[in-house]
């Protein structure tokens, strides 16, 4: 009896759900093509903005390489430029890489979601994370040391900048660990859900 009542109620819910007002939204082939062009333009724009920031940083350190008479500062500038280049490459490669829509249709949602979550998790932990830190950290430190050697009159300011930089890098470690744990918890939940029967 209770089961019958429950079935009746959920049948009502189904009816209510399926009969709710919709706009009858659909797109014409022209609209779809236009939207695809807009999306590609947006992606190109986003890449361009990223390259612009990297280009600015590279230009800034390139300038220091040219004007600085201190070899350590020049070495630091070169290392930082390499770090910026690597960072840009990593972000572009790993973050929100688009899955082709045809692949989405071929992949069950649980598998798709797991892959997406694992990609996010791996961005924040493991070898790729530490390589990113190791590639990016030494350059500015060598640059600061060289700057302090070449300009001892502003050593206090450089010390402040160097300490701030170190603190930011140190803060990135627990933050990324926390992010990766968060993604891992979602993956664990997904695995549990798939195992249950």
């Amino acid at each position: 009896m209770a089961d019958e009542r429950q079935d009746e109620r959920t049948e009502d819910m189904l009816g209510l759900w399926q009969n709710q007002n919709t706009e009858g939204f659909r797109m014409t082939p022209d609209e779809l093509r236009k939207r695809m062009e807009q999306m590609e333009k947006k992606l190109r724009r986003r890449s361009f903005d990223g390259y612009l920031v990297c280009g600015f940083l590279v230009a800034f350190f390139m300038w220091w390489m040219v004007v600085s008479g201190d070899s350590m500062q020049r070495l630091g500038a070169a290392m930082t430029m390499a770090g910026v280049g690597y960072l840009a490459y990593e972000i572009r490669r790993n973050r929100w890489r688009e899955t082709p829509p045809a692949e989405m249709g071929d992949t069950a949602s649980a598998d798709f979601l797991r892959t997406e979550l694992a990609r996010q998790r791996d961005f924040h932990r493991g070898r790729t994370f530490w390589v990113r830190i190791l590639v990016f950290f030494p350059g500015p430190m060598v640059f600061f040391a060289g700057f302090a050697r070449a300009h001892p009159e502003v050593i206090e300011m450089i010390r402040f900048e160097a300490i701030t930089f170190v603190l930011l890098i140190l803060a990135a470690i627990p933050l990324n660990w926390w992010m990766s744990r968060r993604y891992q918890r979602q993956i664990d939940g997904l695995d549990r859900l798939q195992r249950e029967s």
Partner: protein
Amino acid sequence: MARDHLYEQAAGELGPAIERLARSYEADGEKRRDLLQEIHLAVWRSFDGFGGQCSLRTWVYRVAHNVAATHVLRHRRAGARPLVSLDEIESLSDGSDTEASVGRQQTVERLHAFIQQLNPLERQVILLYLEGIDAASIGEIVGISPGNAATRVHRIKKILAARFRSGGRRGR
């Protein structure tokens, strides 16, 4: 063009379901419009790789849910309340949900709000159930066993019956 033809067919048959899906994944009207367009675009583009390996319905639902799940992953703020599972929802008491005096529209609104709290996969199961998809097909779309899907559907029925007591009947 085959892609355009398949899209027309899919939009005709499943367009309303996709709209309801978008509404359950995104509460903000403007973002929902974007999500809806993104889903339609992905469905249209996906047909380049569609060779009848599954039914059109399964294919479209997979694409739509995968796009929507990606949307949730991208746009959820770091400090946002964590999404919950059916287990957690069952253990939460919410007196307001069991009130018997709500109208159709309010019930639908609350149903969307309820679904938006769920993690993407459970959200998907409940949405497919509400669309009248059987447990075996839900399993195929979501990627869980038919038994698992049937168990989840059973629990969803229980939760819906308990939390949305009479909105449907009263509205009829």
